[in-house]
């Protein structure tokens, strides 16, 4: 039981750090780093569930592949938005992005 708990505790701590980063940072790239950490935490949990609870069911590993895809997609679209924003306003600071509302 201890090893599963260790993995889940690491996942929980990483999720907390990522959530703090995503909410507290004003820069788009740093916000994306917070989201990456949260997705990393999800992957740790998924691998731990596969390894310690159901190693014969490979849907767990498949789920990790999908989360990795989501990480790559988040970076692609995030940097696309960052590039567009930087060209338009010369900054990727989200405090200055109030004009995106509505």
């Amino acid at each position: 039981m201890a090893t599963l708990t260790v993995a889940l505790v690491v996942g929980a701590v990483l999720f907390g750090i990522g959530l703090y980063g995503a909410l507290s940072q004003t820069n788009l790239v740093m916000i994306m780093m917070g989201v990456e950490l949260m997705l990393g935490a999800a992957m740790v949990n998924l691998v731990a569930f596969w390894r310690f609870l159901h190693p014969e069911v490979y849907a767990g590993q498949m789920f990790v592949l999908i989360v990795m895809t989501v990480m790559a997609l988040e970076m692609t679209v995030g940097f696309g938005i960052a590039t567009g924003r930087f060209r338009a306003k010369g900054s990727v600071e989200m405090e200055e992005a109030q004009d995106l509302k509505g």
Partner: protein
Amino acid sequence: MGAFGLAAAWFGVVVFRTSSMVRSALALLFSMAAIGGMFLAMEAEFLGVLQLMMMATEMAIMAIFMVMYMMDPGGLSGMDMTHQKRASLAAGALGALGALAVAVLADWGPIEARVPAATAQVRELGIEIMERSMLIFETAGVTILTAMIAATAIAIQSRRR
């Protein structure tokens, strides 16, 4: 596994504590590498190697973008790039505590002591991808293509104007 977990959490904290963006990107790279190490320690060899390879590339690209777009990538002027610190800290702590409570208090059932060998794992994962989860896998591929087109369209929009 515990050592890799500690390293992942420590470098995760360093990401938001350092004022240099390059150090921040490197810290995230080390955190993700430590997560890859955890996968290897949990005998998920394929995913561990994939995580290490993918994150090394991803974080290298991220570091380039950070230096390009940040006002102070070296962190020399000591700019504060945070807001709503207390609320964020509270939300992060609450999220972590909630997940910790579930991790510690839930009854997860019996623990499996053994896993299939690495070669058998890769074979079974391949069969999973090509049979039961094929639609999901194909959907992921199409979504990547869509995201690439969308990101390119967003990035070149201002030039057309």
